[in-house]
């Protein structure tokens, strides 16, 4: 990233005077990392659901234990018709055609937790699902590490890391987003809500996703037993891994909504070419 221009930028007044000016918002590293982990997350979620389908339940325990079941999928025949269920903390929710009994990627519906259009590969194939997942786990880790190290070395992380005063500005910023306040609180490159979200994703979700994933592996458990114990055991780690994935998808939905509503093409251009045109939406970045 260049120094002259940060864009979700500067106090609001300055941005207004600058409206229409092109600024170089995202450096090549940030853009590469962004698209690298977008691709990685897409593949990881889909191949992860493929892997999940092989044992479609989650337990809050070390070994598998139905008494500590948090989530499960089930297929049954009801009045002669197949039905799919999602069972959350013991509550059965009918989800036929979507979860539990769904598209199997072979032109039919079968007992299957997640449908073929959500998994990679589509049809049931644990072996290839694992190959995809483990390759892109490395890609995510390397993109993450390259970003954090490089941004850290060049002092860029300082603009991103939450500071105590940012917490006080969270509520005013939220009010601004809700249009209940005219001006956002003064802030640097990133506004306090952006900072919080990016901090949680980059410094909490990504590392925890990687670590909980690693503790599903018997060799990692033997090498780093304290890590597995920290998550409550292998099945509990599997439950955390899945939960973090759902939370990350929640972030992704919010992110996408903001990308779409704060100048879609301008946002896309800035994340592809780096160049962003300052306008009335500045300060409310994705």
């Amino acid at each position, binding site marked *: 990233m260049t120094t002259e221009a940060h864009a979700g930028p500067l106090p609001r007044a300055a941005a207004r005077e600058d409206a229409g000016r092109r600024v170089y918002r995202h450096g090549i590293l940030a853009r590469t990392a962004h698209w690298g982990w977008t691709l990685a997350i897409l593949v990881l979620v889909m191949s992860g659901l493929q892997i999940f389908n092989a044992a479609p339940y989650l337990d809050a325990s070390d070994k598998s234990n139905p008494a500590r079941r948090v989530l499960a999928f089930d297929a049954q025949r009801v009045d002669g018709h197949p039905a799919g269920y999602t069972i959350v903390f013991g509550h059965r929710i009918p989800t036929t055609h979507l979860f539990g009994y769904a598209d199997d990627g072979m032109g039919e519906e079968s007992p299957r937790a997640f449908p073929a259009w959500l998994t990679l590969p589509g049809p049931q194939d644990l072996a290839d699902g694992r190959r995809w997942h483990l390759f892109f786990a490395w890609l995510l880790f390397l993109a993450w590490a390259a970003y954090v190290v490089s941004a850290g070395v060049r002092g860029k992380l300082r603009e991103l890391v939450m500071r105590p005063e940012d917490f006080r500005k969270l509520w005013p910023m939220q009010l601004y987003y809700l249009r209940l306040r005219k001006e956002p609180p003064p802030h640097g490159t990133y506004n306090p809500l952006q900072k919080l979200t990016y901090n949680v994703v980059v410094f909490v979700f990504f590392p925890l996703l990687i670590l909980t994933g690693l503790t599903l592996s018997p060799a990692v458990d033997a*090498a780093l037993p304290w890590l597995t114990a920290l998550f409550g055991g292998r099945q509990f780690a599997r439950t955390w891994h899945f939960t973090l994935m759902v939370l990350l998808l929640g972030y992704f939905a919010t992110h996408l909504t903001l990308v779409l509503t704060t100048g879609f093409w301008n946002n896309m251009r800035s994340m592809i070419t780096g160049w962003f045109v300052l306008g009335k939406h500045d300060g409310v970045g994705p």
Partner: protein
Amino acid sequence: MKRRLFVASSLSALGLAGCGQVKESLTNGPFRGVLLSTENLNHAVIGTHGLAREYRDADVDRQFRVNGLDTPSDAAYTALARGGFRDYRLVVDGLADRPQKLSLAELRAAGERTQITRHDCVEGWSAIGKWRGVPLGTIVTMAQPKRSARYCVFHCLDADQSGQRYYESLDLKQAAHPQTILALDLNDAPLDLDHGAPVRLKIPTQLGYKSAKWVARIELVAELKPLGGGAGGYWEDQGYEWYAGI
């Protein structure tokens, strides 16, 4: 705003529709070699270090889950089982200076290790069992592997519907790990037929499919390519990793 949403949703619909073919061609196309290379990286980075956690008696699953191919039902195995496996001999041969033929009594006499460990299936579930048997390293050492020997191959008595026999393999380092055992007992009783009687491999530092059941012969070899489908095991031949530590 509406137009953008329309464009975005059309793009995603298009993506989903074409996705089946894209996924298929990516999985089996030239990219496949790149995907497979991850296994060597994982083997190099994670490898086999430390000891799998050992549990207390209270943690044991009394009804240990049965998984894998069907229990052998051929005449030879049925006869062995009817005789209480008195006629069973574990063959250790291949690149060995002193090939072995060991009865169950000889196996029990060779050494003993009891471990309560977690069995982690590649499907994602886990179960805890109390395994008692003889360290594999002890048996391999008895056979005196030649310098050219690099792997132990486990030839098993079970076969799938098409007649393909189960087999597995470990390198000699994995075989020498203190928790890699030839199990004879599960939960304080001799292995029952469904759990791999009379001898199965138990390697808690790798995924469950490495712990071959119904082991009849251990062959010491220099390379895995000539065996079965060439990948070093029944499930490996179907695309699963040979290094199953992760």
